[in-house]
């Protein structure tokens, strides 16, 4: 054994931080890389004397077990299923049945060959040693005493419990589902389908994300329908209002930059000086929650200058004169300046520039409507865009979101209740913004029981006849996303069984009795659409599900098998399903026509973009409002208890000295991604960011450990002092750190936003109308 042919080859890298084993010591990567050159492998194969080896776990290998050539990659189409503007089209490279790397699909002009920092980390997620690998049962919720069980054992346990509560209550309303946006693959609506197939159940309905704005746009325009973001490059003036695309929609930034290259001015409005603000020409940092006043002040100035698009407001709108009268009587630029803190001259200048640039657009972010006056503020901004004639224009528009490309069959979702099921008797609204069954439910004798997802803790505590006994959580991490964490803990204590379907050990799993491992995007077939751009992507199964993971619809099928075994007819969900077949069942003629494809297989060549009559929404100016016109005055809105006009609505009264903002981090989407090593490299711990003046007043130095507290609870973390945050604000990014207890929901209560109930079943939540105090710990 000479040194040159030594067994260890080159010494492995002892590389920089991060290139370490789980113990933090440098790994010896490279040490074993030369195995494939070892002659003993050939020798062993050639010996043929191997049939009688005493292996009991290893199985004789069939020659077909490794279909992948070593020198080539297999290439698959995937789509990022996260709750994100960008919904990236992904190309996945697989070798030896292992995802080696991912990249953005070049065919989508939106994804344009690149992913975001989170997207590139996907292989770290699939192959994370931390992943939940098996169904497991916790003996004593929160005890940390977990046992591994087979899928059959887990499902039988759940099925027995469901049958028991159905027997006890005479219905299945004691079973509640909490699910939101953790996986937007269309077949994952099979979770809702699973619930329906069991009978009438309790659903946590609504959305914490964007409901106030959805309702506002529905009142004004008749639907939420934004221009193609790719046409933003044709804008002559872009206002990005309460959104931070430089972090949260990186693929949209190229259109913003292109618009600027063509001479457009970019105005960014955000209480925080964000990365997007830094890239704009004008950055306004208004008082948080003053957006409505600011928009109305701009509208008043536009009115005063006579820059109103008379043709639009007379031919295509109703109620403009009433709105103008409201502005003249109640709004001045000085008033808006006082409310917002933006100097009156600046408001006048930007308002005039906006009204004279054609086309001009406003990107209405979701952050700005997470307020008690958020819906009213969106209506005011819509009005500003409409009165300047920018609705229905290429490069114009009040851009918020759309669901134009979501016309799938929802085959997985639409399941029948077993014969004889009874349920809730009463008014049924939509169960969220994606509920395609909303119309049909009204006719049924029984319905599901709706609880407000934004008040999950209180609703679980209050529900009676029957109480919620079993909670099923999928595509959701309630402890990270639902409000008032301390109250949620009390609510969970009332539950008799909690089942969570997860990939990682979140705080919700810690509070569960049973955890079921679920597939990642690479391990199931589905199809994905965006609520922002107009591309639709196929999501192919690229690898076998790791460990014992199953997809949501496979879990539903297995539950159905056990339900029907124990009580025939107790569940209508098919018991044997194939995720690819179920993906195929989501397509229909309408989807094919919209995408200009003849078969879903065409999407294997790349994502397809909807063939819209125009890149502009409402280009025919046929609005879906009751009047068929743009409604400055919405009687529907008034009938729902709001103002008919987009009037100013006061914000929430402070209940602690400083405003608390908990927006999205760059390195996570809610609680997803933050636990991966690549993200931890950038974001190892949470910080509260505060202004130097506030820090000085409180005697807080940079990196001091502080307590942030309010009536809901407290968190302890280190402080960073920065001028990017206004003087009256405490900012901390929402996140989940696998090694830390930090949770912003300790501090965020469940105060409702003004709108959201109309289209999503429950009002939104005033995530950014929160207040707290801070002190050195």
């Amino acid at each position, binding site marked *: 054994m000479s040194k040159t042919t030594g067994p260890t080859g080159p010494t492995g890298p002892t590389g920089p931080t991060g290139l370490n084993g789980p113990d933090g010591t440098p790994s010896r990567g490279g040490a074993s890389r030369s195995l494939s050159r070892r002659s003993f492998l050939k020798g062993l194969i050639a010996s043929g004397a191997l049939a009688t080896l005493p292996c009991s776990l*290893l199985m004789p290998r069939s020659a077909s077990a490794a279909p992948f050539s070593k020198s080539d990659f297999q290439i698959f189409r995937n789509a990022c299923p996260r709750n994100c503007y960008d919904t990236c089209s992904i190309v996945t490279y697989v070798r*030896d049945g*292992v995802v080696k790397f991912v990249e953005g699909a070049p065919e989508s002009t939106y994804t344009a060959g690149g992913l975001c920092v989170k997207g590139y980390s996907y292989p770290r997620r699939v192959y994370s040693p931390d992943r939940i690998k098996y169904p497991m049962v916790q003996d004593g919720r929160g005890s940390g005493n977990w046992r*591994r069980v087979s899928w059959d054992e887990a499902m039988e346990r759940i099925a027995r419990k469901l049958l028991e509560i159905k027997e006890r209550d005479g219905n299945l309303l004691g079973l509640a589902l909490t699910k939101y946006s953790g996986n937007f693959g269309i077949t994952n609506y099979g979770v809702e389908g699973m619930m329906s197939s069991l009978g009438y159940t309790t659903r946590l309905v609504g959305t914490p994300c964007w409901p106030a704005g959805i309702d506002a746009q529905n009142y004004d325009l008749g639907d939420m329908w934004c221009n193609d973001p790719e046409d933003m490059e044709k804008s002559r003036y872009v206002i990005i209002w309460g959104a931070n695309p430089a972090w949260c929609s990186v693929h949209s930034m190229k259109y913003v930059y292109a618009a600027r290259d063509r001479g457009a001015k970019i105005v960014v409005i955000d209480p925080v000086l964000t990365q997007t603000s830094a890239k704009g020409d004008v950055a306004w940092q208004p008082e948080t929650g003053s957006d409505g006043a600011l928009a109305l002040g701009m509208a008043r100035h536009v009115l005063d200058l006579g820059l109103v698009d008379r043709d639009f407001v007379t031919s295509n709108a109703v109620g403009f004169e009433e709105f103008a009268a409201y502005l003249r009587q109640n709004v001045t630029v000085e008033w808006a300046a006082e409310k917002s803190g933006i100097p009156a001259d600046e408001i006048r200048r930007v308002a005039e520039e906006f009204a004279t640039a054609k086309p001009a657009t406003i990107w209405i972010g979701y952050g700005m409507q997470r307020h008690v006056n958020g819906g009213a503020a969106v209506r005011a901004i819509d009005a500003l865009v409409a009165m300047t004639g920018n609705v229905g224009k290429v490069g114009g528009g009040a851009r918020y979101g759309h669901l134009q490309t979501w016309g799938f069959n929802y085959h997985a979702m639409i399941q029948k209740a077993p014969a004889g099921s009874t349920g809730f008797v009463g008014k049924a609204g939509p169960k969220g913004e994606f509920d395609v069954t909303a119309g049909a439910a009204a006719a049924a004798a029984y319905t599901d029981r709706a609880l407000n997802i934004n008040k999950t803790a209180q609703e679980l505590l209050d529900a009676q006849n029957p109480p919620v006994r079993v909670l099923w959580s999928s595509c959701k991490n309630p402890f990270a996303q639902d409000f008032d964490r301390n109250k949620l803990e009390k609510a969970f204590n009332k539950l008799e069984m909690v089942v969570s379907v997860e990939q990682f050990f979140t705080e919700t799993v810690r509070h569960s009795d049973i955890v079921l491992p679920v597939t990642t995007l690479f391990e199931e077939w589905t199809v994905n659409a965006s609520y922002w751009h107009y591309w639709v992507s196929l999501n192919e199964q690229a690898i076998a599900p790791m460990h014992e993971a199953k997809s949501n619809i496979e879990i539903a099928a297995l539950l159905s098998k056990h339900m029907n075994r124990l009580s025939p007819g107790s569940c209508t969900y098919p018991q044997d399903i194939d995720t690819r077949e179920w993906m195929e069942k989501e397509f229909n003629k309408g989807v094919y026509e919209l995408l200009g494809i003849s078969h879903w297989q065409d999407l294997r060549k790349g994502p397809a973009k909807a063939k819209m009559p125009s890149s502009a929404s409402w280009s025919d100016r046929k609005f879906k409002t009751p009047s068929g016109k743009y409604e400055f005055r919405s009687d529907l809105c008034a009938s729902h208890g709001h103002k008919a006009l987009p009037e100013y609505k006061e914000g929430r009264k402070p209940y602690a000295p400083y405003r608390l903002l908990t927006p999205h981090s760059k390195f996570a989407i809610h609680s997803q991604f933050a636990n991966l090593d690549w993200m931890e490299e950038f974001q190892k711990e949470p910080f509260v960011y505060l202004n130097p003046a506030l820090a000085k007043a409180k005697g807080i130095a940079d990196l001091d450990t502080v307590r942030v507290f309010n009536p809901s609870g407290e968190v302890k973390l280190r402080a960073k002092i920065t001028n990017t945050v206004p003087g009256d604000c405490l900012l901390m990014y929402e996140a989940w750190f696998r090694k830390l207890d930090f949770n912003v929901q300790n501090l965020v209560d469940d105060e409702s936003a003004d709108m959201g109930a109309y289209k999503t079943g429950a009002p939104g939540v005033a995530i950014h109308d929160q207040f707290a105090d801070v002190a050195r710990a």
Partner: protein
Amino acid sequence: MDHISLTPGTPRDACLLRALRDLFSARSARDIRAASLALDACRTRFGCSRAVRGTPPCAPPGADSIDSPGHWRDAEYAFNRLFVGPMAVPAPPYASAWLEREPRLMGESTMDVRNLYHALGYAVPDEGATPDDHLSFELDAALALLTLREAADTLPPSSAPEPFPPALASDAQEAWRWLVAEHMGAWVPRFVQHALAEPDVPPAIARALAMLLCWQEDAAAACAHRHTPSANADTPTPSL
């Protein structure tokens, strides 16, 4: 070929490997109990002295004094906390988690052992879904190589009904050396050290970890001994 009776490997190593393999692939308290008792039996039968002179003595904790269902249930909880989940485990029992430049599963080191299993004509169940480099599979493969190595060493070619490939002895030995000394040597000691550093490791698991480390160190030392220049002076260097 099944009429060739391959003699079992070194009985002590085989006994240890079987018990350790069964312990680290345990799914339940019952599995852990059975494997722990088997491991104790190995120790009782073969003692705990080191195979190679000059190495420090190996002194794993003694046998469990309690044999109640609750005792083994607690061991199961601890076993899952250390190696299984659902929480992030401090000592993932996968080579790839320790050997890659960044900890992950299904890395290059996983493919290395997959290639070895393939060469032996084996594969893990559900290849592609099951990480090939879980400790229990590697111990199973070590057991296979132990058997093969012994067979090649002890069966004179003339006694075999068919010609025994002359290179098999050196191939089996080299594969064994790669697996136990080079590959496992690069991760098992750190894995053991990490698991043992966790609080409240039950005796059954602490014992298994210590015996695993002793076995691996002994086996690696024996390989090194066999490969010292003096021992190999008149044999050609294997081509790698």
